[in-house]
Structures are given as C-alpha cells and as structure tokens.
C-alpha cells in the first residue's frame, strides 16, 4: 500500500483526466496568467499576466502587425501561419484588439517590426504559461 503511494507520488499519472486540466488551460489561454490564478497561484499568475499583458500592449503601442495566414513555400507558411497561431495564443486581448478595429498594416520600420515581434512573442510566452498551468493542474509540479 505504502509502496503504491510512493510510486504514485514519484510517477504522476500519465493520462490526466481532461476535466482536471482543461478549465485552467482554457482560462489561461483567454486571460494570460488566468490559469495560474484559477489554480490559486496568485503571485505567479499576476507576474505572468503582467509580463504577457505588457508585451502585448507594447506591441500595440509600437503599431505592430498581426500575422495573416499565408501558404506558399515552407518558410512563408511557417512564418505567417505560425505567426498567426502565436498571435491567437494570447487569447482575449487579441480578439478584443481585432474586434475593436486594430488593423495595422505590415509596414517598414524598426519600431513596427519590433511591435510585430512583441505581439507574436506575447502569444508564445502565453504558450509557456499554459504548459505550466497544465503541469500544475496535472499534479506534475507545485
């Protein structure tokens, strides 16, 4: 009995029930840091939400462009479709910005270019936060 408990603690469940992690991951996707807040990790949730939110906000203020999915050669597909995926991974802020009419064209200039990277970067940072929220919800880490 004790051996089973120790083994369970050392080897967390491989198949984590869907309902155990889907809500925190969904909340974390829609509101950056929200998954951690939902799981009671307030400090970490606020740090993640703040960092990702600032990254996204600076991207908007630098007038970065959102990626539109494009196909063609491999590099074009990877950059534009991947960029569009990264933009969407920031969740509600992305949908709110597009709904409110933010539609910056992709123009030349280092500020715009950095803005575009900040917008995509915010989404990628949120992916890291989502993986962390999943691991906490699954009991793989504290």
């Amino acid at each position: 009995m004790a051996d089973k408990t120790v083994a369970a603690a050392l080897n967390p469940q491989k198949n984590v029930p869907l309902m155990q992690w889907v809500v925190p991951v969904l909340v974390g996707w829609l509101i950056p840091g929200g998954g951690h807040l939902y799981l009671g990790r307030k400090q970490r949730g606020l740090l993640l939400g703040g960092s990702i939110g600032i990254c996204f906000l600076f991207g908007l203020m630098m007038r970065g462009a959102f990626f539109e999915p494009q196909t063609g050669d491999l590099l074009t597909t990877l950059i534009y479709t991947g960029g569009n995926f990264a933009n969407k991974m920031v969740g509600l802020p992305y949908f709110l910005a597009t709904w409110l009419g933010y539609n910056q064209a992709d123009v030349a200039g280092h500020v715009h270019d950095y803005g575009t990277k900040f917008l995509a970067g915010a989404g990628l940072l949120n992916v890291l936060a989502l993986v962390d929220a999943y691991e906490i919800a699954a009991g793989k880490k504290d």
Partner: protein
Amino acid sequence: MPKIALSHLETAILLALLISVVLGVVTRKTDKERLQYGMLCFARFVGTIFGLAWLMKLGHG
C-alpha cells in the same frame, strides 16, 4: 492608443526583461530559484545584446 517609439536597445532590453520574468516563473520550483533563474536569464540576454552589438560594430569597421 498612444504610440511609442523605442530605440533598438530599449526594445531589446524590455523584451529580455519580459521573457526573463516568464522563464523564471515557469521553469523553477521555489521562489528563490525563480528569482535567481530570471535574473540569470536577463543577465545572459543583456550580455548577448551587448556582445552581438560589439561584434556587428567591429565587423562593419
């Protein structure tokens, strides 16, 4: 929405700071380790920024 125009250095350092915070939070187990790793990441980012900047300056002559 106000518009801002940061320099290359300001933008790179801001991005380094934000990424370091997230990496620190998600990759370590205790608060002390998170702080240490976040600071280490930030120092490495800033070191790389200055290193590459000097490399480009020297490379261009």
